[in-house]
C-alpha cells in the first residue's frame, strides 16, 4: 500500500514540475510584451517600463525568472502586477467567495443526477427517461451565457429577486438575518445555472453506466435467485455502476478554479474564475501563473484521491 502511494506521489510530483515549466513558458511565448497593458496610456513612460522590467526581472534569462518566480510563489511574496497586492491574498479572498458557489453547485448536481440517471436506466424508454433525455440534450447544447440571460430575465421579471453580485447594495445596516438571506438569494441563481449543465451531463453518464451494468450476467443470476427488484438494482447493479464515478468524484476538485469563469462574469460574482479572467485581460502574469499552478495541483490532488478511493471501492484491485 505504501509503495503504491509513494510511487504515485513521486510520479505526480514530476508531472507537477513539468506543468510548472510548461505554464511558465506559455506566457512567455506570447508575442505581446508583459507590460503592454495599455500602450496608449501616457502613464507608461519608457522609464517606467524600464523600471518595471528591472523590478520584475524581465531582463534576466528565462531560467532565472522561472526560479525567482516560483520561489516567490511558494513564499507568498509574489505580487500582482496590476495592483501590487499580494497574489496569495487576492486568491484567498476570491477563493472564499467562489467556495459556496462551488459547493452548492456540486451538491445539487451530484444529489440530483444519480436518482435521475438510475431511474432512467431502470425504466428505460419510459416517459421519465424520454423526457429527461430530451431535457438533457437541451441543457447540454445551450450556451451557458445564453441560458444565464434567459434565467435572469425570467427571475427578475417574475420573482423580482436580486440577481447580480453577491449582495444587494445598501443592506449593510440591516440585521444579520436579512443579510444572510440576501446572500442566499444571490447564491441561488448562479449555482442553479452551474448545476443544470452538470446534471444534464452527469445523469446521462449515470444512465449509460447503469444500462451497461444491467447487461451483465451476474444481474441475470440475481434475478434467477428470486431477488426483489430493489435488491437487484441497488445492491448488485449500482455498486458496480458507481465505480467509475469514484474516479469522477476526485476530478470535481479542479472545477473550483476552472469551472466558473462565465458564470462569475455574468453575475459579477467576485470569485476565482473572474479573477483569472481579469488577470488574463490585464496580462497580470503572477496571478495567472499562480492560478494555473494551483489548478494543476488541484487536478493532481483530485486524481490522486480518486486512485486511493478506487483502491477501497473495487475489491478486484488489491495491492
Amino acid at each position: 500500500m505504501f509503495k503504491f502511494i509513494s510511487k504515485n506521489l513521486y510520479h505526480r510530483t514530476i508531472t507537477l514540475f513539468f506543468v510548472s515549466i510548461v505554464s511558465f513558458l506559455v506566457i512567455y511565448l506570447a508575442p505581446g510584451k508583459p507590460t503592454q497593458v495599455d500602450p496608449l496610456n501616457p502613464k507608461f513612460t519608457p522609464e517606467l517600463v524600464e523600471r518595471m522590467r528591472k523590478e520584475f526581472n524581465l531582463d534576466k534569462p528565462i531560467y532565472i525568472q522561472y526560479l525567482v518566480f516560483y520561489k516567490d510563489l511558494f513564499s507568498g511574496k509574489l505580487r500582482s502586477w496590476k495592483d501590487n497586492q499580494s497574489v496569495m491574498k487576492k486568491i484567498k479572498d476570491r477563493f472564499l467567495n467562489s467556495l459556496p458557489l462551488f459547493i452548492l453547485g456540486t451538491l445539487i448536481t451530484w444529489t440530483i443526477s444519480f436518482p435521475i440517471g438510475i431511474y432512467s436506466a431502470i425504466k428505460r424508454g419510459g416517459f421519465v427517461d424520454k423526457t429527461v433525455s430530451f431535457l438533457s440534450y437541451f441543457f447540454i447544447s445551450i450556451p451557458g451565457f445564453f441560458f444565464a440571460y434567459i434565467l435572469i430575465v425570467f427571475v427578475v421579471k417574475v420573482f423580482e429577486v436580486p440577481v447580480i453580485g453577491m449582495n444587494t447594495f445598501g443592506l449593510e445596516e440591516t440585521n444579520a438575518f436579512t443579510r444572510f438571506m440576501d446572500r442566499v438569494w444571490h447564491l441561488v441563481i448562479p449555482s442553479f445555472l452551474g448545476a443544470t449543465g452538470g446534471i444534464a451531463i452527469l445523469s446521462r453518464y449515470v444512465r449509460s453506466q447503469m444500462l451497461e451494468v444491467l447487461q451483465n450476467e451476474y444481474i441475470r443470476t440475481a434475478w434467477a435467485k428470486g431477488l426483489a427488484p430493489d435488491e437487484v438494482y441497488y445492491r448488485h447493479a449500482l455498486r458496480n455502476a458507481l465505480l467509475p464515478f469514484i474516479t469522477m468524484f476526485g476530478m470535481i476538485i479542479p472545477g473550483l478554479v476552472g469551472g466558473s469563469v462565465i458564470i462569475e462574469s455574468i453575475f459579477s460574482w467576485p470569485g476565482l474564475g473572474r479573477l483569472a479572467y481579469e488577470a488574463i485581460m490585464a496580462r497580470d502574469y503572477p496571478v495567472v501563473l499562480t492560478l494555473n499552478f494551483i489548478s494543476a495541483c488541484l487536478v493532481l490532488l483530485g486524481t490522486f484521491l480518486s486512485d486511493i478511493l478506487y483502491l477501497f471501492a473495487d475489491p478486484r484491485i488489491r495491492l
Partner: protein
Amino acid sequence: MKGLLDIKSLSIGLASERVRERPFVVRDLNLKISKAESVCLVGESGCGKSVTAISIMGLLPKGLTILNGQIFFEETDLLSLGEKELRRIRGSEISMIFQEPMSSLNPVLTIGQQLKEVFLAHRDGEDTFGKREIEDRCVELLKDVGLPHPKEQLKAYPHMLSGGQRQRVMIAMAMALSPKLIIADEPTTALDVTVQLQILRLLKRLQKAKECSLLFITHDLSLVPHVGDRIYVMYKGRIMEEGPSKDVVLNPFHPYTKALLSAIVDPESPKAQRLAFFKESPRLNLNTLNHTFEKKGCGCGYAERCLSVQSKCWESEPELLDLLDLKGRRVRCWLYAV
C-alpha cells in the same frame, strides 16, 4: 412418475418485428420432466435451447416475447403468474445455473454475501432463518459442493476463485433452498475438460441426494450419458427427436441426431465412417442447391443440411410422432412417418 414440468406448445419470437414476418426462435415446443428425473436438451448454438430455459424462469430479455403456449409447473401455468409470484418460485422451487462462471457472480460482493442472499430473499417475512443458522448453512453448502475451505471462502471475492470453484458456488446457490427443479444451461462449456467431469458428477450426486429434477442443456452429446435419463434433440427451435438417452445415443433415428453423434470424436471408430459424414458437406450437396422453400416456414427446417433429404421434405414439415414399437421414442422426420 408424476409430472413436474410440462411445457405445452411453447412458441417464442422476436418482439419487434411486424406480426407477419415474425421469425420464430422456438416453435411449438413440448417438453415434460417428471419428479427426480434428469432430462437433457441438446442442440447446436442458436437452436433455442437457452431461450427455452430462461422462459421457464420468466426471464426473457426485452427483445423476445412468448407468442403461444403454457408452461405447467406442478399444475400452475408459470406464464400466467405475475412477477411477484414468479419471484417466489425463482431460487426456491426452480433455480438456474448459467454457462459463464466467470461473469455470473457479482465481482464486488463476497461469495458469502451472494449465497446468503438466497436465504434472505425467501424469508417470507418471518425470521424462518436466523443469522447464525444461515451462516452455518452456507458453510454446509460450500462443503457439499466440494470447496476445500468453506469458512474462509465465504469471505472471498469471486475473482479469487478459479472457474471450476465459481461454478461450484453457482451450484451451491442453486441448491440452497432445495428446489424441485434445477435448470443447468451449459454449465460446463466454459470449463476445462478435466473439471467438466467433476462438475457433472457433482451435479448428478446432488440431484440424487436431494431428489430434485434436472434440466441439463448442452451442445455436447458426449456428456448426455453421464447426466440424462431422457434426451430431447433440438434444431432451429423445434424438437427433432426425443427418447431415453441411452437408446437415442446408441440407436439414433433422426438424421440430425446421427450427424451430431458422428461429430463426437471417437478415436476407436473407423476413420472412414467418421469422415463419411464430413465428405459431403451440406454446402456441396447439389440436391439442396436447386430447391427453395415454397412458402416461408414450410418444410422441414433441417432440409438444407440433411443428407437423406427428399423432395417431400421441402414441401411440408413432418410432425413429431411416436415410433410404433419403441416406447418413449418420437421423431420428426419423413423417413419414419407412415
